[in-house]
């Protein structure tokens, strides 16, 4: 699956969200909340962020709390500090870990900021729960409107 890649040399401070996988080769500080995708922190990567994702694979440096819907895996080169919560967990020999582990039940659903149930809802309620793609379209539309006047101007000229 295609993934967003924060390459080595790049630092992101803030919140990363969405429905695409994220691969961290650089640095991320803040939080990462992915709906149904996974996070890969490579050997060069470093993240200090609270994470909510499907799977989290750590081969680099990580500090924070993770709630995964499926698997958290720490490779031999991983150095992790924090609280891990997932139904499946793998810590390989050589990895460094300090913190707390809580294994939730398999198939546990995430906290109730989850996907909205498809019921006939009024437009306002739907608008309040835009998924990432719609948010992008909305911002794009706003910018489009702001530049639309130029079309009218050129017609008058």
């Amino acid at each position, binding site marked *: 699956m295609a993934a967003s*890649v924060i390459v080595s040399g790049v630092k992101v401070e803030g919140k990363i969200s969405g429905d695409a996988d994220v691969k961290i080769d650089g640095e991320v500080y803040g939080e990462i909340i992915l709906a149904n995708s996974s996070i890969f922190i490579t050997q060069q990567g470093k993240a200090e962020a609270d994470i909510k994702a499907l799977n989290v694979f750590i081969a680099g440096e990580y500090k924070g709390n993770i709630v995964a819907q499926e698997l958290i895996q720490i490779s031999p080169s991983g150095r992790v500090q924090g609280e891990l919560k997932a139904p499946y967990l793998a810590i390989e020999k050589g990895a460094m870990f300090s913190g707390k582990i809580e294994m939730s039940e398999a198939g546990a659903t995430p906290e109730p900021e989850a996907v909205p149930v498809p019921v006939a809802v009024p437009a306002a309620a739907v608008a309040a729960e835009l998924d*990432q793609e719609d948010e992008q379209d909305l*911002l794009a539309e706003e910018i489009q409107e702001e530049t639309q006047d130029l079309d009218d101007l050129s017609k008058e000229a």
Partner: protein
Amino acid sequence: MDENNEAIIIGGTVIEGKVSGDANVRIEGTLRGSVDIKQTLVVAAKGCTEADIKASVVVIEGHHRGDVQASDMIQITPSAKAVANLKAPAIAIEKGAKFCGNIEMSGE
């Protein structure tokens, strides 16, 4: 250190915050916040940015809103729709681009 080291934010990923560093960055998803990088930033045709940008080269092919400052050049391509104040020694706005904002051509 790799040459052609390019960070890519694909469609579906949203970043709210600051992106900084020394690499090329390509945005096909959404970015809200600010960018301060030493190399090239490309807002791809599908990309959407609402951010103040500082880079050496900035190429806008998609939707963008925010101030842009480049030490080298700014290019607004035909598929771009931008609301921005631009500042760079060289600026190219291609036919078909929708642009609204101030332009200042000057060295940094």
